[in-house]
C-alpha cells in the first residue's frame, strides 16, 4: 500500500531548481575571503592588540590584603568558606543545586576531593621546614577535640573580622583572646603566602610537575581579592560579566543569552540559578537546532519577507 504524498508546505519543502545556472568560482571566492580575513585580522591586531592582565598569585593576595587572606584561611579551617561548603564534585558538605527534585552533582558525587582545612591550611603549614612554633601549633590543633577546635576557630574568626585586625611588622595583629594554636597557624600560612612559597606548595603538593590549578584557584576564589578586581572590569555575574573582557576590548558577545538569565530578578537570586540557567540554555539550543521542525517558528522567514531583499534579482527576472 503506497503512502499518500505529503502536502506541500512552503516552510518545509521546496521544488528542485530547474532554472538557469550562472558561472561561479567557489575556489576563487574562498581564496579572496581568506586574504580579506587575513588582512582584517592583521589590521585589528596591529590597531587594537589584545589584553593580558597578569595572573593573580597567592603572594600578591596575601601581600596586598593580608587580613582578607587570613579571613579566608580561618573560613577554610572552620568549614564556612565557599569551597568547604560547596558539595560535589569537591566534597559532600552541601546537597548541590537541584532542578525538578534532581541534583546531578550529588548523584555523580565527589570526583575531585578537596578537604579545605587540610589542603588550604594544615598541609601547607606542615610543609614549612624550619618553623618549630608552627609545627607545635599544628600538633596542638590536631590533637584537640573537634569541639575545642571549633571554639578556637570561631573566636579567631570573630577577631580577624573586627576593625582592630591588621598586619604589622610581619605579623597579623588581632584583639587579645583565646584562639589556642589557631593564631600561630594562620599567621604562619599568611607569612608563607607573602614569601611566595604557598603558590608552589599548593600547586605541586610536593610533587615536581603539575598543571592542575584546582586547589590554588579554589582558595583564591574563596577570598575577595580576585572578585574585587573583577568588579572593576564588570566581569561579575550580575554585571553581564560573561560577555565582558578586561580593559576595553570586546568580549564574548555570543554569550549574551546565557548571561542574560543571571540578570533576571528571581532567577538571579535562586539558590539553583546555575543549574536552572543551564537547563534553559540546553532547551533553547535544542529549539534552535529543531527550528525546521517547529511550525510557527519555521514560518518566521516567510512572514518577515527579508528573503524578498536577498532574492530580489531572482524575483525581478521572473516572467
Amino acid at each position, binding site marked *: 500500500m503506497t503512502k499518500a504524498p505529503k502536502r506541500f508546505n512552503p516552510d518545509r519543502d521546496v521544488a528542485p531548481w530547474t532554472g*538557469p545556472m550562472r558561472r561561479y568560482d567557489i575556489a576563487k571566492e574562498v581564496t579572496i575571503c581568506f586574504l580579506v580575513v587575513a588582512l582584517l585580522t592583521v589590521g585589528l591586531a596591529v590597531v587594537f592588540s589584545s589584553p593580558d592582565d597578569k595572573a593573580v598569585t597567592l603572594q600578591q593576595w596575601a601581600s596586598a590584603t593580608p587580613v582578607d587572606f587570613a579571613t579566608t584561611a580561618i573560613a577554610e579551617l572552620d568549614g564556612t568558606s565557599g569551597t568547604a561548603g560547596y558539595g560535589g564534585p569537591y566534597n559532600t558538605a552541601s546537597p548541590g543545586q537541584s532542578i525538578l527534585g534532581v541534583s546531578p552533582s550529588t548523584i555523580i558525587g565527589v570526583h575531585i576531593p578537596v578537604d579545605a582545612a587540610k589542603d588550604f591550611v594544615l598541609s601547607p603549614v606542615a610543609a614549612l621546614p624550619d618553623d618549630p612554633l608552627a609545627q607545635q601549633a599544628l600538633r596542638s590543633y590536631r590533637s584537640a577535640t573537634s569541639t575545642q577546635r571549633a571554639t578556637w576557630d570561631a573566636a579567631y574568626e570573630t577577631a580577624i573580622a573586627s576593625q582592630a585586625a591588621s598586619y604589622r611588622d610581619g605579623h597579623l595583629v588581632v584583639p587579645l583572646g583565646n584562639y589556642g594554636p589557631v593564631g600561630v597557624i594562620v599567621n604562619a600560612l599568611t607569612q608563607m603566602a607573602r614569601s611566595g612559597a604557598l603558590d608552589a606548595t599548593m600547586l605541586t603538593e610536593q610533587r615536581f610537575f603539575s598543571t592542575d590549578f584546582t586547589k590554588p584557584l579554589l582558595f583564591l576564589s574563596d577570598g575577595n581579592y580576585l572578585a574585587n578586581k573583577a568588579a572593576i572590569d564588570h566581569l561579575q555575574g550580575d554585571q553581564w560579566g560573561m*560577555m565582558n573582557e578586561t580593559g*576595553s576590548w570586546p568580549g564574548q*558577545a555570543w554569550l549574551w543569552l546565557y548571561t542574560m538569565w543571571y540578570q*533576571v530578578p528571581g532567577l538571579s537570586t535562586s539558590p539553583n540559578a546555575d543549574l536552572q540557567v543551564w537547563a534553559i540554555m540546553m532547551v533553547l539550543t535544542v529549539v534552535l537546532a529543531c527550528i525546521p521542525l517547529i511550525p510557527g517558528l519555521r514560518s518566521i522567514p516567510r512572514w518577515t519577507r527579508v528573503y524578498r*531583499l536577498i532574492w530580489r*534579482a531572482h524575483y525581478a527576472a521572473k516572467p
Partner: protein
Amino acid sequence: MRGISTAPFRLHALVNLNHPNHFLQWGWLSISRSNAIVVGLMVVTFMAAVAIPFPGHGDADQEEVR
C-alpha cells in the same frame, strides 16, 4: 579601587584599550561600549550584505541556461 593595580602592559597597539570600559545601561540591561560596537557593526554588515547588489547578475554573458 586603590591597592589593586592593573598589570603593567607593553603597548603594542595603535589604540590603547588597556583601561576600564564604558558601559551603556538601561535599567537592568548593560552592554560594554566595545561589545555594542561589535554587535552594531554586525547588524549593519548584515543589512548591507542583503541590500547591496551582487555584481554580475543579469549580465547575459554570465548566464548559462541548462
